[in-house]
């Protein structure tokens, strides 16, 4: 199964619209809570970044996040788990480790890997919506985009890491790496 790019963008933008969110930074935690998900914050000395647990018998969902990580990372994790919640309903417990979000781990099957990619794309679409980025980059020249500071400042507005913003701008075709 290929990554459902269109479906993911639509899902994220509908969620932003129904929450009345029109500018960055997007508060992924509030959106999750609005969907009836509980968020538990805990400091864990480990590579685990977060998890999603669905208790179907009691109609309950929990996103757990490791507060040991940077606040931008925590926001991304919440958005990522929210992606699993909305896109991968078959899964009852999903645990994300620090590097699994970007890299394929030996044990993970192709399906799992695609689920991760979808959850990542969802997080990007939610935290850095194309409309917001387009508006912010309307008057920006290609030259400015090449400045490191520019991407860092933009990342600060969206409260994401520079790395996440760089990936996003590349995905949207604004920059080439």
């Amino acid at each position, binding site marked *: 199964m290929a990554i459902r790019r269109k479906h993911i963008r639509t899902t994220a933008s509908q969620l932003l619209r129904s929450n009345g969110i029109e500018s960055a930074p997007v508060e992924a935690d509030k959106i999750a809570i609005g969907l009836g998900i*509980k968020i*538990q914050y*805990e400091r*864990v*000395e*480990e590579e*685990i970044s977060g*998890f999603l*647990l669905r*208790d*179907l*018998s009691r109609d*309950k969902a*929990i996103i*757990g996040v*490791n507060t040991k990580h940077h606040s931008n990372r925590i926001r991304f994790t919440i958005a990522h788990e929210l992606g699993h919640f909305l896109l991968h309903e*078959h*899964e*009852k*417990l999903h*645990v994300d480790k620090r590097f699994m979000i970007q890299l394929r781990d030996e044990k993970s*099957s192709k*399906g*799992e890997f695609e689920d991760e990619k979808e959850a990542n794309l969802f997080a990007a679409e939610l935290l850095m919506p194309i409309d917001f980025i387009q508006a912010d980059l309307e008057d920006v020249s290609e030259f400015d985009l090449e400045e490191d500071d520019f991407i860092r400042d933009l990342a600060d507005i969206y409260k994401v890491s520079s790395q996440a913003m760089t990936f996003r701008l590349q995905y949207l075709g604004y920059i080439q790496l």
Partner: protein
Amino acid sequence: MTENQAFYKDLGSRIKTARKRVLLTQESLAEKVSLTRTTVTNIEKGRQQLLVHTLVDIAKVLNVSVEVLIPSQQTTSINDLINVKVDSPEAQEFIRKAYDMADRD
């Protein structure tokens, strides 16, 4: 680990329990349903996904209804799920704690 593995692990342990109840060894169960003992071991450990007709045969030999052997969402407890899907004890603890906390409010 995938969701299915948790399912088959549960299914396997149900078969094992039912087998012990009727005092059969893995070997004698294997013989009665035309499988090898290794296959029965793997099924009971959830490492092998069995065919439906085999499950029906097993249920017949163990004198239980098929439904008793099939895990349903309600019966797979959160605890079992955490044990099956999460390797590190600290991560297990993290998830259990969060689950308990969310239960409280």
